[in-house]
C-alpha cells in the first residue's frame, strides 16, 4: 500500500486560512478606500463622465461653511459621547463588579441595547421624544416642567442624539471595563489596605492605573465609533429630508452622505471622507504615542 507523505508548510497553511478574510478586507475595505482616494481628485457625479480636478475638492471642503459646521458638530458629538460612554461604563462596571443581588440580570439589561438594531432603537426614541405626544414630554409636563423640543430644535437635537447614542453604547464599555476590573490582582488591594488606603485612594492608586490598558482600548474604540456615527442621526433626524434642524446634527459622515446622495457630488464627498480618515488616523496615532505617559502595562 502506498503511503502519501504530506509536507507541512506552516506559513503557507496560515496564509491559506487567512486568504478568505484578506480577500474580504481587500474587496470591501481596501479597494473602496483606494478608489475613494482616486475619486476625491475628480468631479465624479456617479455617471459615465469624470474629469481630474486636482485638489479642488479639498480646497472647497476647507473653505466650505457646511464642512466646517459639520466638523464642529462632529467634535461636539465625539467629546460628549466618548466622555459619557466611558464614565458611565466605568461607574456601572464598578457597581456590578460587587457581589450584589441581581448582578447578572443588571449586566444583561445594560448590555442589551448594544445588541439591538440601531435603526429600531432610533425609531423607538423618535416616538419617545415626540415633542407633542411623546411620553418623555408628557412625563415632564406631569411633574410641572415645560416640554422640550428634543429633535425639533437646534438647541436640543444634538443632545438628544447624544443621549440615544450613549444609552445604546455604554453597556459595551461596561463589559470591557468589567473584564479589566476582574483581571486586577487582589493582592494589590490587600497591600493598599495594609498601607491604610481608603476606598477612594484604592480606586485612584490601584484600580485606575490597572485599568488604563482597557481604558485606552475603550477610548480608541469610542473615538472611532463616534467619528463614524450615521445610523441614529439618519433615522432620528429625517435623513432623507436633510437631517436635523438647521444642520445641528449634521456630522461629517452625514455631510458626506448628503453631498454624495442628495447633491450628486461624489468626488467632493470622497474628498470629505479622506479628510475624515486623516483626522481619525492622526488622533489615533497621537493616542498611541501618548499612551506611554499614562497607560500602565506592569503586571504583577
Amino acid at each position: 500500500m502506498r503511503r502519501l507523505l504530506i509536507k507541512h508548510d506552516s506559513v503557507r497553511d496560515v496564509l491559506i486560512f487567512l486568504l478568505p478574510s484578506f480577500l474580504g478586507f481587500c474587496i470591501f475595505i481596501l479597494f473602496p478606500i483606494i478608489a475613494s482616494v482616486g475619486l476625491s481628485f475628480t468631479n465624479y457625479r456617479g455617471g459615465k463622465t469624470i474629469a481630474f480636478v486636482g485638489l479642488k475638492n479639498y480646497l472647497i471642503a476647507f473653505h466650505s461653511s457646511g464642512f466646517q459646521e459639520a466638523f464642529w458638530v462632529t467634535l461636539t458629538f465625539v467629546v460628549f459621547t466618548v466622555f459619557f460612554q466611558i464614565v458611565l461604563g466605568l461607574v456601572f462596571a464598578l457597581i456590578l463588579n460587587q457581589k450584589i443581588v441581581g448582578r447578572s440580570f443588571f449586566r444583561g439589561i445594560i448590555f442589551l441595547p448594544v445588541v439591538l438594531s440601531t435603526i429600531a432603537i432610533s425609531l423607538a426614541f423618535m416616538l419617545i421624544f415626540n415633542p407633542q405626544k411623546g411620553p418623555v414630554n408628557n412625563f415632564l409636563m406631569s411633574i410641572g416642567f415645560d416640554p422640550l423640543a428634543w429633535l425639533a430644535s437646534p438647541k436640543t437635537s444634538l443632545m438628544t442624539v447624544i443621549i440615544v447614542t450613549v444609552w445604546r453604547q455604554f453597556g459595551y464599555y461596561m463589559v470591557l471595563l468589567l473584564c479589566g476590573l476582574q483581571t486586577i490582582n487582589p493582592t494589590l488591594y490587600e497591600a493598599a489596605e495594609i498601607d491604610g488606603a481608603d476606598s477612594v485612594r484604592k480606586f485612584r492608586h490601584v484600580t485606575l492605573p490597572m485599568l488604563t490598558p482597557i481604558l485606552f482600548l475603550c477610548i480608541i474604540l469610542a473615538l472611532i465609533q463616534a467619528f463614524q456615527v450615521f445610523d441614529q442621526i439618519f433615522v432620528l433626524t429625517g435623513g432623507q429630508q436633510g437631517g436635523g434642524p438647521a444642520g445641528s446634527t449634521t456630522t461629517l459622515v452625514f455631510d458626506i452622505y448628503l453631498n454624495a446622495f442628495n447633491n450628486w457630488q461624489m468626488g467632493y464627498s470622497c474628498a470629505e471622507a479622506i479628510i475624515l480618515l486623516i483626522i481619525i488616523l492622526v488622533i489615533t496615532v497621537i493616542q498611541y504615542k501618548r499612551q506611554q505617559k499614562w497607560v500602565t502595562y506592569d503586571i504583577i
Partner: protein
Amino acid sequence: MRKLLYVFMVCVFMVAVVALVAGFSIGAYAKETITYYLWDDPTYKNIVEAFNASQDEVFVDAKIIPAADYDNKLRTLLAGGAEMDAFMTKTAHDIYPMVENRYVEPLDDLIVKYNFDLSAMSAYERVYRIDGKVYNIPFRGAAYYTYYNKKVFEKAGVPTPDTYVEKGEWTWEKFVEVAKQIATGDGKIYGALMYFWSLNQVSPAIQRGVQFITNEGKIDIDDDSVLYSFKMRKELEQAKAIIPQAELKATKTHYSRAFWEGNVGMLLIGAWFPGQMLSARDGNLLKDYTWNDWALTRLPCNEPEYRTIDVPTFNCVHADSKKKDAAFKFIAWMGGPEGAKVVAQNGFLPAVVTPEVEEAFVSVFPDKASLKYFLEDKVVMPHWLNKYGVGIENMLGPVMEGYLLTDMSDDQLKSLINEKLQEIIEITM
C-alpha cells in the same frame, strides 16, 4: 435493447421538436417585459395596471420604492448600473445630473418614429428639453393650489379662501391673516400647513421668477421676495398658525395625514393631492369631515397676473435599456391622451388636458368650483431648473430652519444665502 434505445431516441427528438415549435408560437404572442421604477403612491400602481390591461405588446414590471427613500435609492441604482428600462423622476432638477451622467436616453428619434405629439405639453418644454434634446415625457401636470377644509373654516367663522380669490384679494398677506384667524394658537387647530420642501419655503419668490442661480452660474436673488418668504413663514410659526417645520420633520408628519386629521384649515400643495384625497375617501381616513367638506382654489399670489408654481413629473428611458422602444411606448402612453385619462381618473392633473380628461375629473372633485380652478389656464412658474437646482433644493431647508429657530437677523440671512449659493456654484463643476 438496441431497438428500445432507438425508440427512446426518436421519442426524445419528437418531444424536442414539438417543444421548439410551441416555444416559438408562445414567443410570437408574448408581451415584452420592461422594468419600471416608481415610488409607492397607490394611484401609480393603478396607472401601470391600466396600461398593462390596455394592450398586448408591452408588460410593465413595476419596481416600487417607498417615496421617502425614492430619490436616494434611484440615484444609487443608477450609479450602480442596475438593470432598468424606464423610471419616474421625483425631483425634477435631478434630470440635469442624470443627463450629464448619461443615465437617460434622448427621445427625439423615438418621438419621430412613433409619431408622438409633444406640442400638447409645450408648456413644459423647459423641463423635457435640455441642450436641444428631449430627455423625458411629462405625465403629471404642474400646479400648486390652496386646498381647504370647509368645516374648519365654518367652526372658525372665517370665509373660505375662494371668497377672496373671487374678489381678487387672495394674496400672501391675506393668506397669513386667514391662517391666524383660523388657528387656535395652542396647536389644536392650525390655520395652514406649508410642507418643508424647498419650494414651499419660498413660494412667493418662485412666483416672482427668482431662480437663485442662473444657468450661467450667477447668483440671482430678488432679495425682497426671498426675505419676504422667510419672514412670512416665521410670522406664521410664531403665531402657531402653521405646524412648525422642524416639528414636521422630527415627527415625520406627512402633509396628507395632517390634512386628513381635520385640524388643518389650508394645505398648500400640488396637483397630485386630489388623488390622495381619493385614497383617503376610499380608505375612510378623513377625520371629522366628509368628502364634500374639502375644496381647492388658487395659490395665494402677490403678482399682478395670477401664477402658480411647480414642475411636472416625468418618465425617462434608461440609456442602457435594451428595450428602449417598449419603454418609450409605455412612457408615451402615460404622457399621451390615453394615459392622461387614467391619470385623471386617479386624481392627478395630467400633462395633457383633453375633453375626455375633463370629463374624467368630474368624479374626482367635490364641487364644480374646485374643478374650475384645477383646470383653468394659468402661468406655472418652475423653480431652479438648471444644474445648480439640486444644491439649491438641499440648501434652502437648513437655512430656513436656522432663520426660524435662531435669532438670525435679516442681514445675516441674506449674507448666509449668498454664501451658500456661492458654495453651490463652486462645488457644481
